[in-house]
Every structure is written in structure tokens, then in C-alpha cells.
């Protein structure tokens, strides 16, 4: 939480911060200097949540960016940390949460697809070794054109990082000041 507040303060110092606070991304590419690179599909900002005790399922979130002029398609996903990994689409349809496995995911040319809470995500099932905050979960994504892209999902704590936390962090005075950060 402290790190998040600091990151937000830093972001505020740098810009007007007109967008809602985005989760801090600490990927190595964030700090890299611009250099001529091949235009290719990338997978970044991968994260998941620490699994509560006894829970054998987890959601995986990431951003797929396809700067090429050709559409691509995510056809398979796998991870050594789950008995099965599937691409799921979740939707809150009028107060009822529904979840469905989907066979593949189209990635438009010069476009991006975000897998995030409450929507498209990777679904880990049969997680026998719990995900603990701070570790990295390896995932392999197979694309029709780009081939296999390997990435890791950073495990965030069970609590924190909800919209309520973001709102509390954005509130400089008053209630937020007395709110203890849960889970610390």
C-alpha cells in the first residue's frame, strides 16, 4: 500500500494524473530507453492475486499489444502452476456473475486487448501450490502468428488494489487518513 501511494504521488508529481490511478507497472521495459526494436506482439502488465487458503482457482490479468499490421489470435494458454489454464470471459449480467470459457481471443492489428478483473481473464484451476504475494507465475501464451510468448504474472496481495483502495488512496484527508491499510 505504501509503495502504491508513493507511486501515485510520483505520478502526480509528473503529470496532472487525469486518469484513475492505474496499477503500478514495474516491468523491465518501463525503464528501458527507446531503441530500435522489431515490431512485434508483446504481453505486459501481467498480474494475479495471492490465492486465499484452500482456494484452487485464480484469475490472471495482462495486456496483449499487437503493433503489427496483421491481426493475430491467442489460441492456447498454459502454466506449470495450474492443472489447467483457460481463457475466460466473465460478465456481470444484471446482477448475476457469469463465467464462460472461450476458445480463442482475436487480437486486432495495431490494437490491444486487456485481460482484467471483471472481464476477460485467464482462469487457473487446480492450483495446488498457493500463489503467494511477491512471487512470479510463469505463463505461456500461444498465438497464431506470433507463436509462443512467455511472460510472468506478478502476484499481488489478496487485499488491496480494489477500486475501494484506489478511492481511499486518492482521498488526501479525512476518512482515508484514519483507514488502516488492511492486510499489513
Amino acid at each position, binding site marked *: 500500500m505504501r509503495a502504491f501511494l508513493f507511486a501515485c504521488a510520483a505520478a502526480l508529481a509528473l503529470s496532472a494524473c487525469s486518469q484513475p490511478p492505474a496499477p503500478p507497472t514495474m516491468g523491465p521495459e518501463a525503464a528501458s530507453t527507446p531503441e530500435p526494436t522489431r515490431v512485434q506482439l508483446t504481453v505486459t502488465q501481467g498480474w494475479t492475486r495471492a490465492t486465499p487458503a484452500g482456494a484452487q482457482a485464480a484469475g490472471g490479468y495482462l495486456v496483449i499489444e499487437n503493433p503489427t499490421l496483421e491481426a493475430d489470435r491467442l489460441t492456447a494458454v498454459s502454466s506449470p502452476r495450474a492443472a489447467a489454464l483457460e481463457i475466460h470471459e466473465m460478465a456481470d449480467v444484471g446482477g448475476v456473475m457469469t463465467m464462460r470459457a472461450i476458445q480463442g481471443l482475436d487480437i486486432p492489428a495495431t490494437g490491444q486487448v486487456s485481460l482484467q478483473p471483471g472481464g476477460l481473464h485467464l482462469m487457473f484451476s487446480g492450483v495446488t501450490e498457493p500463489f503467494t504475494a511477491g512471487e512470479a507465475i510463469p505463463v505461456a501464451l500461444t498465438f497464431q502468428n506470433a507463436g509462443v510468448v512467455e511472460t510472468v504474472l506478478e502476484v499481488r496481495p489478496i487485499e*488491496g488494489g480494489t477500486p475501494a483502495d484506489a478511492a481511499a488512496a486518492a482521498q488526501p484527508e479525512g476518512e482515508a487518513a484514519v483507514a488502516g491499510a488492511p492486510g499489513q
Partner: protein
Amino acid sequence: MLRAVQIGLWALAAAAVGVLAYLQWERSPSPERSVAEDVVALMNGDVVVGGAFRLIDQSGRPFTEADLVGRPTALFFGFITCPDICPTTLATLATLKAQLGPQGDDIQVVFVTVDPERDTPEQLSLYLSSFSLPVIGLTGAETDLAAMREAYFAHARRVPLESGGYTMDHTSLLYLLDRQGRFVEVRPYGEDPQATLAALRALLT
């Protein structure tokens, strides 16, 4: 001869109960009410929500509607093998309760499973211990859970997964009850947390 007829009738009755139980499970709470109608009715406060139920908590103790009296309650339906909405709801409630300060501790949080096959009291106890706020986890026989959902106009449906397991579609609303255990309102999942906070604060007054 008479005995054969008797056995036949019993078999028929058993089959009928089985079919009814199946229908109840697939289309709970009741066939003539759609999920959408129930959500609209709940959001508008058009229905009388609540009633008698008998479940057990994560330590195996009975928990009935009488246990909802005395403290305001925030109640929702979920299951352990739920990657997103259930931990998010619990984490959000933890943050909001912390924002309410010591007064917030008065609110009891109740998690009712829609997946009793996997969510035994032991599993619930383990799972809920991972969160920083105290939560009462309820499970029970599927028929008792279905009856409770019916009283709360909630729905649950089992959906098979390709990997061989299953997931559950379920009502994602947060139910707020006053100190007398009476239904006050539902809050939609994913709403502005400040709105939920205001609703929780109103429960405490």
C-alpha cells in the same frame, strides 16, 4: 403383488423427488421467476426479502435468520473456487470497514456459498482466514441453501468447464440488513465504493 405395487410407487415417488430436486437446482429459486426480474425487483425494493433458513457456519454451528438480529449485516453469495468477484468483494468490504473505523466492526459480513459440494465448513474456515476481516461463512445441504436463496431472490447455476471441473454463476449483489435482520437494500457489484461506503454508514445509524 401388493408389495410389488408398493415398491413401484415408492420408486416413482423417489424419481419424482429426484426430478424436482434437479429442476430446483437448475432453475432455482423458481421456474417462473427469471434472474433479471429478480434483480430488478431487488434493486427496486419491490419484494419482501428474507425468511427462515437453517445453515451451518464454518465451525459447524447452526446459523439461522435469528443470528442476523443484533448487528447490521452485509451478506453475499459466492464460492471458494471463484477467481475474481468473491475475493474482490471481501477485499473491498475489508477496506470499507476499515474506513468506517471502530464503528465498522459492528457490521457482520456473511458469505453464503453456492457450492456446498466443495465448500465444506473446513474449507470455508481455511479460505476466510486469509482475509483481514471476520467473515461468517455459511454452507449446508443444497436444498437448504436453495431455500435460503429463494428467500433472498438469489440465483446460482452450475456451469461445467472444459478442464473437467465446474464453475458457478451466481447473484453478485451485496445484501444489506439492519440490526433487526430486516432487508434494507442491495448494492450492485462493482459500484462506486463511496456509494457502498455511504450505504454501510447508513446501516450503522
